[in-house]
Structures are given as C-alpha cells and as structure tokens.
C-alpha cells in the first residue's frame, strides 16, 4: 500500500512536550522515506509493549502488534523467525525492557536476531504515573519510593556491550535528525540493533535541562572499536554527572540467529511422507 496516511485518526494522548512525539515523527519520516524509495511498508511491523511509549502502535498506520508489558522482544523474535522478509521494529519502554522483560533483551542481543529495538528511555514508568525504573538515578522519588530509591541505575549501553549486541546506539528526543539516522542505520543493520533513546517525560522526568548541555557526539569515534565503546558507555552511568555520548557507539557484523536456525521448506506431501516414514519405521 503506497501513499497511505502514516498517522492514524486515533486521538493522541501523550502529554504536551512528551518526547514520544519526536520518536513518532522520526519513524514517520523514515517510513515516508522508505515508501518514496519504493520499499513496501506492508512488510514493516511495529511491536510495542504497554506504557506511554507503546501508544505509538495506535498512532502509526502500519502493521503492529501491541503486546504486553515487557514482552515486545520475544514477539518480535517470533515474527522475524516466521517471516524473514519482514522488517521488525520494537518500541519498548525502559520499565518494559529493562525491568519486566530484561532477559529477553539480553537474549535478543546474544542471539543477534535481526530486529531493531528502540527503547523510549524516559527513566520512569510513565503510564502507571511515575514510579522509578532501572535507569532512574539513585534516590529518585517515585510513587513507590517516596523517600528515594535504594539502588543505582543500570547502564543499558554497558549491559548490551557485555551481551554481545552487534549494533548499539544512543539517541535523544531533542536531537531528531540524529535519531533518524540512528534508527535508519539500526534497521539497515543485519542483526540485532539496540537504540537507547533518552526520551523526555514532560510530566514525571523532565530532564531536558540536564541532558541538553551534556549530550555530545564523540568526534572520530570508530564504532568498530569495542574498548572505546566501553569507555564511552561508562563515561555517563545514568547516575553521576558527566558528558553523555550520543550516536552509534558500537557496531559489528556477525551471522544472525535467523539464518542459523533456518530449515528447508517442505511441501505438505513431503511432510506427510516424513510422518508416514517415521511411523513405518516404528514397526
């Protein structure tokens, strides 16, 4: 289907100033571009979790699977294995895929399954009205931790480096052009692509004043340099004050899980024959 209106008629209910708008517009712009390049959007699938971020499934007029809190990645993995021709993009929340469903993220990276994971990392549970997430800073006062959290945040970039992810990037919703590049490259990357997006939550974690002066794009960074990527990842630990590197932090080429587990196609009669052969061999 070409020339479709990429934004649906569903009423948008994000708060004014929410960074999710940026992610939505970025995806829309990318989809527009692909369509113009003659790529069919019929083969694009968006998988979302549950949360503010996930509403994007209602707002973008493409195939979508609006799944469960924490479960975008296994759904996306199933879809990709079922039909390798599909381009599968996950829009996850930070609560979603760093807390509830963290293991799926680790295993997607480990397997190098060819999907693109965009984490709307607003560092808070938005839709459930403001509890801490794994990336909230130590001491964050959310509704479940009114006297402040008791744990340091997880550094998802460092985690992904340790898990063998083959494309690791960080974006920021106040840098839309760069974000577009990151997502485009992530989708183009053959294998697992991870993009942590510092997404402004206007209501519960309005951190623009913190991020904007600190973000930078490291000059001459070679994404093939793992050691350097580790240093960049650790420069800012999502807790202490430091510069925040944006861009593609690491990239590497490696065979994907899908190719490795591929099986030959069998016709119905070949299968029936196989069944009958097996049964016959059991006499």
């Amino acid at each position, binding site marked *: *289907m070409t020339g479709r209106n990429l934004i649906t008629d569903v009423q948008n209910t994000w708060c004014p100033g929410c960074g999710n708008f940026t992610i939505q517009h970025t995806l829309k712009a990318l989809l527009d571009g692909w369509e113009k390049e003659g790529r069919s959007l019929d083969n694009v699938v968006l*998988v979302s979790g549950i949360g503010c971020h996930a509403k994007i499934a209602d707002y973008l007029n493409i195939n979508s*699977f*609006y799944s469960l809190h924490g479960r975008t990645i296994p759904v996306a993995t*199933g879809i990709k294995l079922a*039909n390798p021709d599909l381009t599968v993009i996950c829009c996850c929340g930070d609560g979603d895929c760093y807390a509830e469903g963290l293991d799926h993220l680790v*295993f997607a990276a480990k397997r190098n399954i060819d999907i693109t994971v965009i984490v709307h990392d607003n560092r808070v549970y938005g839709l459930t009205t403001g509890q801490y997430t794994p990336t909230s800073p130590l001491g964050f006062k959310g509704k479940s931790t009114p006297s402040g959290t008791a744990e340091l945040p997880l550094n998802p970039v460092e985690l992904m480096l340790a898990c063998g992810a083959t494309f690791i990037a960080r974006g920021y919703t106040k840098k839309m052009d760069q974000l577009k590049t990151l997502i485009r490259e992530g989708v183009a990357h053959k294998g697992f692509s991870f993009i942590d997006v510092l997404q402004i939550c206007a209501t519960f974690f309005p951190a623009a004043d913190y991020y904007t002066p600190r973000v930078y794009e490291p000059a001459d960074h070679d994404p093939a340099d793992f050691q350097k990527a580790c240093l960049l990842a650790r420069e800012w630990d999502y807790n202490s004050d430091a510069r925040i590197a944006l861009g593609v932090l690491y990239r590497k080429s490696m065979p994907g899980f899908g190719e490795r587990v591929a*099986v030959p196609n069998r016709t119905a009669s070949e299968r029936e024959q196989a069944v009958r052969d097996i049964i016959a061999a059991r006499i």
Partner: protein
Amino acid sequence: MAEEREVSVLVGGRAGDGINNAGALVARLMSRLGYRIYLYFDYPSLIRGGHNFAVIRAATREVGTCREKVDFVLALNQETVTRHQGMVHDGTAFVFNADLVKSEGQGIPVKAILAAEQAPEIMGNSVMIGGFAKAAGIEWAQVEDVFRAALPKGTDLNLKVARRAYDQLAVVRKIPERGSPPLSLVTGNEAIGLGLIRGGLDAYVSYPMTPSSSLLHFLAGEKEKFGITVVHPENEIAVVLMGLGFAYAGKKAAVGTSGGGFCLMTEGLSLAGMAELPLVFVVSQRTGPSTGLPTYTGQSELQFVLHAGQGEFPRLIVAPGDAGEALAWSAIALDIAWQFQVPAFILPDKTLSEGTYSVDTAALPSREDGPAGPGRAASPSLPYRRYADMPDGVSPPAFPGTPGAVVKVNSYAHDEYGYTTEEGDMVSLMTEKRLRKQEALARAMNTFPQVNVLGKADAPVALLCWGSTKGVSAEVGDALGLRVVQPVVLEPFPTTQLRVALSGTTKLICVEENATGQLAAIASEYGIAVDEEIFRYDGRPFTYESLLAKVQEVIL
C-alpha cells in the same frame, strides 16, 4: 502366562542403564508377534543410579495400562528382583545379569559375553535382550529384524553378543505368535508431534520440562524432515510470546511445557484470547503442586488450564486417551485453533506423553486436502479490519505482508481495526463477538465425536474418565460389564454428547488421577452429577487391578 492372550515383562536396572531403550526393544519384539503393546517407564528425577524400570504389556486387545503381575523379569540390577517381588507370580520367568544379580531363573554372564566379542559395555543390554528372546521362545530371525530396525549403529556386533546369550539360554515361557500384522509403536509425545505436523505445524517453541521435553527433542531431531522451525528460548514467557509472534505472522505454532512452565505462559494465553491469535499449548501434566514429582503422573491441571489467564475468552481443550487419539486430535486442535483464532490445549499427562502404544496407521485419516479452516486468507477487503465483527465472531485473518492490509493486533480492548478503545459500547461489542465465537466453536466441535463410549455401552453403571485413564477404565469396564465414558474434548464442554453417552445410567463413577475430582466438578457445574469418585494421587497410574478393586468397592 497370567492369561492366554497377554504377557507382561518387567525390565529393571539403574538409571543410566538404558532401561527405556531395553524396554522398547522388548516391546518391539512382542509387537512383531502381533500383539498390541503398552509400555510404562518408571524413573526418578536423576541422571545416574537410582532405580528405573519399564513394564511392557503385550495383549491381543488394545491396552493402555499395566497389570500388577508380570510374566518375565529382566533384571539388570539386584533391586529389580528385590523391589518388585510383589509383581511376581508362580510362573514368572527370570532372566538376569549374572555379574550383578542373584536370583532364581536364568543368569547371563554379560561381562564374559561382551569380552568374548570385544564389545563395549553399553552393548550389555543387547545381551540381555538376546537372552530374553530365547527365554520367550522368539525366533532368532525376529531378533535380527528388530535389531536391524532399532539399532542402525553397530548392528552386527549387537547381534553377535545377543546371539551368544540367545544360544546359552533355554526357552521357558514361549510367547505365541498372534498372526496379526504388527503395528507401529509410538509414544504419546511422538504422536502429538506427528499429529501437529499433520495439522500443518510451522514452528514448535518450547523450554525443556518433564514430561513435555521428549516432544521438544523429537521435533528438534526431525525438524529438517518436517521443515519446521524449532526454538528453545530463554524461558517459558519467551516461548509463548514467540509462539504468538509466529501466529501473528501467519505461521502455525505450538508450544509445549508442564504445569510449572505453563504458569509462566498464562499471561501470553490471555493475550492470545484478546488478540485472537491461534496457538496450540501442549501441557503435559505431572504430580503437583509446584515441582512435585517431575517424572510421575497426575491429572491436576484441568481446572487450571480451563481458567488460566485473566479475563474471559474461548479456548479448546482436548485430552487424548492414548497415542492414537493424540495423533488424530493434535491435528484437529491445530486446525480448530486456526479456524477460530483461539488458543487450543492438548492436555496429556506423564503416562501418555512417555508411554508407548501400538498405533494403527491404517486408521490414520488422510490429510491430503490440507489443513482445514481459513488459515491463509486470500486478499482481504480493505481497509483491513483485523477484528471485523462477523456473525460467528470469527474475523477473516490476514498477515503482515499482505498487500494493502494494515494488520493490527492488540492486547488492549480494541475496535474492529485493532485500535485501542475505552468506550464501553465497543468493549461490550467485542466481548459479545468473543462470546459468539465461543458458541461457534462449540457448534463446530459438536460435529466431531467428542465423547468415547467404551466397555458395555448400555450398562447402567458408568465410569467417567478422561485422558490416559481411558485404557485402564476400558479394561475394567469390560471386566465388570460397565459402561465407560471418556470425553476427549473438555472445553467447550461437550454437554450434549456427554448426556447422550450417559443416558440411562443409574450410577456414575468418576475416575481421576488427582485428589479433588476436577472433571467431576466441571460435570456437576453442567448439571451432570457424579455419584462416586475414585482418585489416585501418588504419581503412579492406575494399574488394572488397583482400579478394578476400587471400582468393585463402590459398585457393591
């Protein structure tokens, strides 16, 4: 022999001795003589040491349970002799490994035989089988045939060592040939796998858990032949959600687990219900609660599977009674899941999953017309409405990649397009759509014979059973002249067919391998009152005699 028409063999040894394989060889030898076979394998949850045993029963009738007495004991360890004394009768013939076991009967110098042929230790079982074959008066040609079919590697050496034992022993109890053509021997899990393949399976996703694991192993081993994707992911949550990913993309998937793993799938199950995605769940029951007895049986997941997942949505539950039914109904379960876009359950237990049964392939219905139902829709009308509100509640499916169709599935309450809604009227409409689908599903299932009537079909006293107790109930029913009624479909509950099957009964006795009577509770919810309940909950399946005695108690 206890009876003319049947023979039972006990094979016992240490875990790690390959008792299951030895039992399978014995089963095969007897199957070739024209008997119907049932093999029960009993093992604790450990890798080496501990005591394993198999009981192989060969009979002229269909069998699905053991007798308490055996005619042959094949002892690979001393425990086999000491532990199972209660299973021996006056005429039981003993064949044992003389290096390890002291017993009456015929001992075999296994070590010496292996040494003579310079054969490795793992061929010890072939020696024992050779000895058994002789003791049972089975022709050598049969042994050779079976070894060639079952042991493709090192066949000649295996045969050589077996032959030595065969030559050393004497015939003690000749098992007569029955003349009827031999049937295939298939485990319950293999039958489920084969049934799913015949139903059009594209992918099997599973995380190992006894007693479902052997289905994973079987399908993983044959995936190239079948052209199916087999995935063993990080945990059961990933399993069910990958399965739903396959379904969304238009591929027929099944997942497999046992009760504990199924717990972790319940959230995905409810998603399947809401998103109207077809997925087959194979839940093989074992003794619970919790980790319970991993390698022993039970029938205590019926109510759980029936009510699992938040909210209300239609589902299919079938509980096959033996491998033949498993083969047939697994294909149907997959068909129906896709036809109605609902989750479907296949609910075996350890007895069925890991038991071996004779399967009559002649009875295998042809599937040449391919899977039924609107599995692959042609071009849908656009703009595509994934949840178009049809009279029977079933919306025409389409999958991503379909030109022009925007396919949106959603775990939230949604409208016909799949967009989230919070409007009360739309929520009601979609709930009613699912209710109508439930009715359509029930109507469709009514076109199948869902309830088996066995035993004496018009007897006033009836046994009501489900799943793997089919075999033992049928035998007891035959022996006591009772009607035996076994619903294979348990949801939508086949009330009408069950009433017909029970019509004219004056006393209904429910037989279940649990402690609370789960089928009895469901039946009474549908107004079918059970008069007596017979339970077993020690992890062991009813033997013929144990059930017979309990039934006799309550019918007196």
